[in-house]
């Protein structure tokens, strides 16, 4: 039987070609996503490993946790004297102190802004430092700086040039050398400025303190033993980590930073595979029905039903294996492409050679083969059901079974109920249930609904004359084919519509809320995409000194652990917040924050069952577990405008956080000063701070919307791949159906249908399927989108905004794409000879 399977696969090469493309594309996506995120992870890990290569222990101030949301927490500095204490511990060969922090590099007055951090560090010679001088010398005097080779190359800096570094203080430094990092030319997505320890301390405002002490163990001393010994000597106020701890902590941070993009890429890959699965199932169905006479003949000469089923599944196995293999190879190349796509939508991933883990290969090959074989199960069962007598009979399409329709009706009711409940305010989980139920209903009911839907939606085709009517009938009379093709495209389009509506609504509501709550005339924010913002307090002072400015109120963000889970809070200045924002309180007052405590968003408070006067345990990196009194409850929409559900005062923040940067400054102008004048004055005052940007309220709201747009854009582009696969499905299905309809088309030609008319008949059918998919897809996407928005917005419903323009565009594009998808089969159909109708077979 196996040789028959292979012979079949070979004989149907052409029919399976486009199916192969679907498998290849889906697998390419999976491989690319995995390879890309693995690569980023590996690059980050390598970086940590190189950084700690020659060092056995690193001593820093202790912290309750190392990183949150992929951002390493800042720690308090250490007294410099600790180095000597450590040197005195038995088993320590040597120890060295260093100062490391953030320092923005400026070249020729222009800031060099990398996607990642701007590192400012003291120079440590080997074995403590991982940098080695490639050109020039190491920094020896105050005012010397060494840059990494990659940064120097990117910004055109050479030895002897002058650059400015902005940290706590600003310094103009002379480049005395260029350094490499292990085998790399620098750190991924970063700029690195290496200076002498005193320079670093001065610029970072550390006084005579340092940020870390690195220790090398004596020959034969195990790092873990030494860790204990050092810990005993210096006490629990300090954190002693082995090189291994440091690497794994860094890797953890990197992993959580990459988690979101990985999940996103893999879900899009999943969507592509889902759509591909429909296409595969459809192709096999058609091939099986075209071969039913042949299958019947095989049955007549003694093949068992089981053998036929195995044969079809074997064919799928071959196809899946070949497609996955090609897809995996292409996927490695696609990794680079995906990085480019992500970068163009503002998601930066480090550059470097791709890492292809064995797991990636296994997953990609496995997923491709499993999806292909699973998709072929239905058609294989149908092949096995072909009765031997059918060899002698014209095949007919069987009506969908009653059981199938009943099951479909149940799924549809579940979907309607779930979406209805979500619209009424039930949880997000119900929307997911609804989405799955919709998919099941679509698959089960598709063939039953296709004929009437095709006739209704295809009514306007009557105007296109007999070709249009023939196209409509052809679609209506092959319900299984039409349903499968339509469903594949509809799923892709529904996802696009869903994301568009969700994104648009989130955008509109967040912009609306922000403008409802914040009444400031101007907002100063960092122009860089930093998780906690990045305005030094010099910015705050500079803005305060502007005569046109009446009030400046600062806002900061910080991470904390909520019973182990990472959460975020916002620090505000209660005394001035009222002048730049109108925050609605449900209970208590925001002024009470001045005496410590925390204000919690009403919905969060309800969820945890806390009220004003209760205590809330919060874990801070710097101070560990702390009990804060709940002094007020804030309206949750207003809390949203301030970014988190927990508000504390600046003083409380300073107590528990080492971080000392503002996220934004809310500015109220003096009476009689116009916003334009005020903005100009503040901008003038900020010329010394190239990364601080001042904007009016509308512009800020717009910038927030733009951030949503970027992610939305990325998701849409990635989803379009699924749509493209679905369009391939239309091409494939029609091309196959034309093989099936050779005699019919020959007949039409013989009674006087022109080539053009035949071609149009096929094109119209493609357009009909596309439009059908648009109708179904957009309707489902809109329903689920609306339900999703309602479910996500909680007790205070966010209005669903309908991006009518975008949806209209989707309809137009899909229709045009349908026309395009019909081009190839139309050509094929128009080439069918007149004599095909009478050809003996």
């Amino acid at each position, binding site marked *: 039987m196996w040789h028959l399977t292979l012979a079949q696969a070979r004989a149907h090469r052409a029919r399976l070609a486009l199916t192969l493309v679907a498998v290849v594309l889906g697998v390419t996506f999976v491989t690319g996503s995995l390879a890309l995120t693995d690569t980023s992870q590996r690059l980050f890990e390598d970086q940590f490993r190189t950084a700690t290569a020659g060092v056995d222990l690193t001593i820093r101030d202790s912290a309750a946790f190392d990183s949150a949301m992929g951002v390493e927490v800042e720690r308090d500095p250490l007294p410099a004297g600790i180095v000597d204490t450590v040197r005195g511990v038995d088993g320590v060969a040597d120890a060295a102190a260093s100062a490391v922090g953030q320092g923005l590099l400026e070249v020729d007055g222009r800031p060099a802004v990398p996607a990642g951090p701007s590192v400012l560090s003291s120079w440590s010679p080997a074995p403590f430092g991982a940098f080695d001088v490639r050109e020039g010398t190491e920094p020896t005097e105050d005012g010397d700086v060494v840059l990494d080779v990659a940064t120097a190359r990117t910004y055109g800096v050479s030895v002897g040039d002058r650059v400015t570094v902005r940290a706590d203080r600003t310094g103009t430094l002379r480049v005395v050398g260029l350094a490499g990092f292990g085998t790399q030319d620098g750190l991924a997505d970063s700029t690195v400025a290496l200076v002498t320890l005193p320079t670093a301390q001065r610029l970072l405002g550390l006084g005579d303190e340092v940020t870390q002490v690195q220790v090398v163990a004596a020959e034969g001393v195990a790092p873990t033993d030494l860790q204990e010994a050092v810990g005993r000597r210096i006490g629990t106020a300090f954190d002693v980590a082995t090189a291994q701890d440091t690497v794994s902590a860094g890797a953890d941070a990197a992993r959580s930073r990459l988690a979101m993009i990985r999940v996103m890429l893999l879900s899009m890959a999943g969507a592509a595979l889902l759509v591909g699965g429909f296409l595969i199932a459809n192709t096999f169905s058609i091939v099986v029905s075209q071969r039913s006479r042949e299958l019947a003949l095989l049955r007549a000469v003694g093949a068992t039903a089981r053998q036929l089923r195995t044969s079809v599944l074997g064919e799928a196995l071959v196809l899946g294996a070949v497609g996955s293999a090609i897809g995996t190879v292409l996927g490695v190349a696609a990794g680079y492409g995906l990085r480019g796509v992500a970068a163009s939508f503002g998601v930066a991933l480090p550059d470097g050679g791709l890492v292809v883990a064995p797991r990636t290969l296994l997953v990609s090959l496995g997923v491709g083969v499993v999806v292909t074989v699973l998709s072929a199960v239905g058609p294989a069962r149908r092949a096995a059901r072909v009765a031997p007598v059918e060899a002698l009979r014209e095949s007919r399409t069987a009506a969908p079974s009653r059981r199938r329709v009943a099951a479909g009706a149940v799924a549809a009711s579940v979907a309607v109920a779930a979406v209805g409940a979500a619209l009424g305010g039930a949880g997000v989980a119900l929307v997911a249930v609804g989405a799955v139920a919709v998919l099941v209903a679509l698959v089960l009911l598709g063939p039953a609904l296709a004929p009437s839907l095709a006739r209704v939606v295809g009514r306007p085709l009557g105007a296109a004359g007999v070709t249009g009517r*023939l196209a409509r009938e052809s679609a209506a009379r092959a319900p299984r084919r039409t349903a499968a093709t339509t469903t594949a495209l509809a799923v892709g389009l529904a996802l696009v519509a869903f994301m568009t509506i969700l994104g648009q609504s989130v955008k509109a509501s967040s912009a609306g809320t922000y403008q409802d709550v914040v009444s400031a005339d101007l907002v100063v924010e960092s122009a860089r995409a930093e998780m906690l913002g990045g305005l030094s307090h010099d910015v705050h002072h500079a803005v305060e000194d502007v005569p046109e400015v009446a009030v400046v109120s600062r806002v900061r963000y910080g991470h904390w652990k909520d019973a182990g889970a990472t959460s975020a809070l916002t620090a505000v200045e209660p005394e001035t917040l009222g002048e730049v924002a109108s925050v609605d309180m449900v209970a208590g007052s925001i002024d009470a924050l001045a005496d410590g405590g925390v204000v919690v968003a009403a919905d969060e408070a309800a969820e945890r069952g806390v009220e004003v006067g209760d205590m809330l345990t919060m874990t801070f990196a710097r101070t560990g577990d702390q009990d804060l009194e709940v002094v007020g409850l804030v309206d949750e929409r207003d809390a949203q405008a301030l970014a988190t559900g927990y508000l504390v005062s600046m003083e409380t923040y300073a107590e528990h956080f080492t971080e000392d940067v503002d996220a934004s400054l809310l500015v109220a102008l003096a009476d009689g000063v116009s916003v334009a004048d005020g903005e100009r004055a503040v901008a003038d005052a900020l010329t010394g701070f190239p990364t601080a940007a001042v904007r009016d309220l509308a512009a800020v709201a717009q910038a927030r919307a733009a951030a949503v747009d970027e992610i939305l854009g990325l998701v849409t582009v990635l989803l379009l791949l699924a749509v493209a696969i679905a369009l391939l499905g239309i091409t494939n299905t029609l091309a196959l159906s034309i093989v099936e309809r050779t005699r019919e088309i020959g*007949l*039409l030609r013989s*009674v*006087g*249908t022109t*080539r053009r008319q035949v071609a149009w008949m096929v094109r119209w059918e493609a357009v009909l399927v596309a439009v059908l998919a648009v109708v179904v897809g957009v309707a489902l996407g809109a329903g689920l989108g609306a339900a999703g928005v309602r479910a996500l917005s909680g007790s205070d419903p966010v209005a669903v905004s309908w991006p009518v323009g975008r949806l209209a565009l989707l309809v137009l594009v899909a229709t045009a794409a349908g026309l395009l998808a019909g081009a190839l089969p139309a050509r094929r159909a128009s080439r069918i000879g007149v*004599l095909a*109708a009478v050809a003996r077979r």
Partner: protein
Amino acid sequence: MTTTLLPATRTVAAEARAVVKTYGKAETEVRALDGADVRIDRGRFTAIMGPSGSGKSTLMHVLAGLDTVDSGQVRIGDTELTSLTEDQRTLLRRERIGFVFQSFNLVPSLTAGENIALPLTLARRRPDPAWTDRVLETVGIAGRLGHRPSELSGGQQQRVAVARALVARPEIVFADEPTGNLDSRTGDAVLGLLRHATGELGQTVVMVTHDPAAAAHADRVVFLVDGRVVDELDDPTSAAVHAATARLGAGKE
């Protein structure tokens, strides 16, 4: 030769002269038509007979503009087909020719009525109601117009096909073994229909057949052997056709 035997008074509906049609090339070349000359008289029922592989179907395809020739001339009325493009031949078929094939005559997705109207719809012509009624009445299918081909018997399907061939009032109707798949009673009904079309409706009909009894319905029988016309009979009887067939078959051995 054979053509000179025809009475000069008859007008010519279609004509093939010295037509050569080959399939394949070099060693595998088959001369399906090897200098065939034939004239189809207007208003008569002509049958084409000959052994299997003698080129009957090929001749019909060539005469009907379904296929091209290697050399020689083919005319429908005054139109020379060999110089027409594929699209021009398509239009010619649509407007001036009707077909009945042995099987698979109907578009499965259209009803019987729609199938019958197809040539008119394609040409965007309005059916002539009186004529249509007469055709439908003649083929006796009026009650089943709303049915799809899969819901009709083989004989009914062939009758629908005949109706379609006649409804646009083509100059010639070509039929290739229209009764080949039917039992003799149903076959007789279809033949009677074609006969009726030539007699009462004034059609010109050309039919390829293997069956001497079927050929006996015709006004004239043309015999083809190895791609050439070798004999013909006017007003044949079944017995005469049998005799001629036997003679030609024996001569061939």
